[in-house]
């Protein structure tokens, strides 16, 4: 175990941002912390990184107590903060070089530039970088000390799809090297794609933990039938559909989790035809359940507002 968190609590005034959570992260795994904005992800990560003090609980990283020897731990972890926070008047290469000087051990600047595909912008001042480039530099900085654990806080927010997939391959690369990656994200498909295990967090509490497959399997034997209807049918109508196990209704977007897809689908079609103009079906598709559905089932809300 490279990270052990026991009964962690953090309060800000009246608000309990992190409410008695415990979990472990194994060496070499990509661990995801998943939850909506304000769920307590960043607070938890920043306590583990030694950037904030906990109100209660114990955190150890690489076998060392965070509250006792933060400097020692910081040598061996890499940190990417949520918003890129860099010095505007330094260029990419200079920024990496400066950070490399903070550590006893570091990778060469070139190596990291290659890894994050930043070679072309190595001489560009930080203030002139695009949002995506800044984000990649920010990730590059978290890898400059060849860390045992990399903490990436929403690393793909604001990236275009291509850059996002580029970053995913960086994380895969880390996994191959046997490094541990601690990822927070509110992108469910990202967590499903990358993470060996995820902890789903909401209102400062872990509400589910396990591999993405396991979480989906435990919560859903069903497939999801998703469609729009204007006006939406009532919950009662939906729940009465044959095969329907569970129903989620979000404005006029409807998800029916069904154990018997053909029967449910046929019933939905019939219902729509009976209503004629008033019950027009739109954007109907069938898919397997995802982490997003798990979150919806556990909290009654979608992860993104």
């Amino acid at each position, binding site marked *: 175990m490279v990270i052990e968190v026991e009964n962690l609590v953090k309060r800000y005034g009246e608000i309990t941002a992190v409410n008695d959570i415990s979990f472990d992260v194994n060496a070499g795994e990509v661990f995801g912390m998943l939850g909506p904005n304000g769920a307590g992800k960043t607070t938890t990560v920043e306590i583990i*990184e*030694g*950037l904030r003090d906990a109100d209660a609980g114990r955190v150890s990283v690489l076998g060392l107590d965070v509250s006792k020897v933060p*400097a020692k731990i*910081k*040598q061996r972890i890499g*940190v990417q*903060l949520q*918003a890129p*926070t*860099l*010095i505007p*008047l*330094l260029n990419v290469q*200079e920024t990496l*070089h*400066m*950070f*490399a*000087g*903070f*550590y*006893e051990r570091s990778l060469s600047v070139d190596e990291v530039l290659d890894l994050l595909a930043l070679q072309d912008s190595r001489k560009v*001042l930080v203030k002139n970088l695009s949002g995506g480039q800044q984000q990649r530099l920010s990730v590059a*900085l978290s890898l400059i*000390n060849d860390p045992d654990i990399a903490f990436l806080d929403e690393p793909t927010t604001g990236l275009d799809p291509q850059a996002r997939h580029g970053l995913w391959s960086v994380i895969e690369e880390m996994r191959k090297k046997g490094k541990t990656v601690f990822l927070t994200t509110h992108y469910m498909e990202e967590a499903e794609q990358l993470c060996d295990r995820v902890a789903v967090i909401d209102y400062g509490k872990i509400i589910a933990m396990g591999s993405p497959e396991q979480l989906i399997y435990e919560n859903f034997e069903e497939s999801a039938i998703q469609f729009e209807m204007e006006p939406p049918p009532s919950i009662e109508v939906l729940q009465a559909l044959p095969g329907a196990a569970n129903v989620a209704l979000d404005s006029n977007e409807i998800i029916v989790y069904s154990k018997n897809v053909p029967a449910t689908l046929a019933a939905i079609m019939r219902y729509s035809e009976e209503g004629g103009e008033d019950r027009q079906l739109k954007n109907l598709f069938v898919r397997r359940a995802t982490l997003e559905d798990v979150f919806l089932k556990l909290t009654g809300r979608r992860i993104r507002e």
Partner: protein
Amino acid sequence: MKALRRLLVADFRQFVRDRTALFFTIAFPVLFMVIFGLVFAGEADVSYKIGVVNNDPSGRGQTIVAVLDSMDFFETTDGELDVMLEDLEDGDVRAVVVIPEELGSATAQEPVDITVYYDPSQSTSSQIILSILRETMNQIDRQITQQLPVLQLNEESVQSKDLRSIDYLVPGIVAMSIMILGLFGSLTLVEWREKKILKRFAATPVNKPTMVSSQVIYRLVLALVQTAIILVIAYFAFDIEVTGSWLLLIGLVLLGTLSFISLGYLAVSRAKTTEGAMPIIQILQFPMLFLSGIFFPVEFFPSFMKPIVDAIPVTYLGDGLRQVMVDATPLHSMTTNFAVLGGWLVVCLILAIRFFKWE
């Protein structure tokens, strides 16, 4: 050490890329000096008419009149007080010096006042005249109380005439530049805090003393470079040579910079944003600029301002620099100057460490 070195390199890289910083640290003081230098250079050719009313029958009064007479800067006329004052009102003379009757019997224990009437509406010339009169009187006074021969007094008076306005001004510009450099330097940490750059650094093994040291060392180097540039230009443009000890000069520059940096850090310790910190620094800077005696001798200020003048650190930095650079008459001893600057440094440093918010 490696971390400190890399931070310093980064500081200087930013400096040369930051046009505002370049302007205020290098161009601004130089422009300031050159403009004022040209203004005063024009006036230096002019001699001012002053009236002298000598009520002292002893030789001392006559000595003063003789000294003032001998100066190219002044054209003296003597006469009765009321006539002279009328001339002053009419603008025929720029100032009237009244030597009291008791001058002959004055001792160090029982000093007497020499009164100067001047026209405050003619502020520039009045200030110049007053500063030169003050210098001259100080020189004469020193000679009289030390009871040295009158012959030497004349020699001395020639030297005191040499203290031109620009001589008074250049050390003031050095002090001003150091103050601006130190005070505004504190904004970097505020900006880093606001932009969460400090937080990013906190996630690395770099500690706060290293971060602050890099900032402080960087400003000390800048202060020395800045002073050197001002001195070089002052030497070539205005023929000003440093008369005193270079070691003392460097010591004053470094200590002054440190004091103002810590004062700056204290002032912005709770400011949340750079926008919020900027006015705090400016509010601090303006009175210090004008009440410090950097540009005008402190005698010009109304007496209720004297305590402020005596409290602010620029006064002592300016005075120290003036003594070292142009051998001006001391307002305070060098020890006092160093002690007051050091005192400000220690107090501000302790308070800044106590109050500075890192996040």
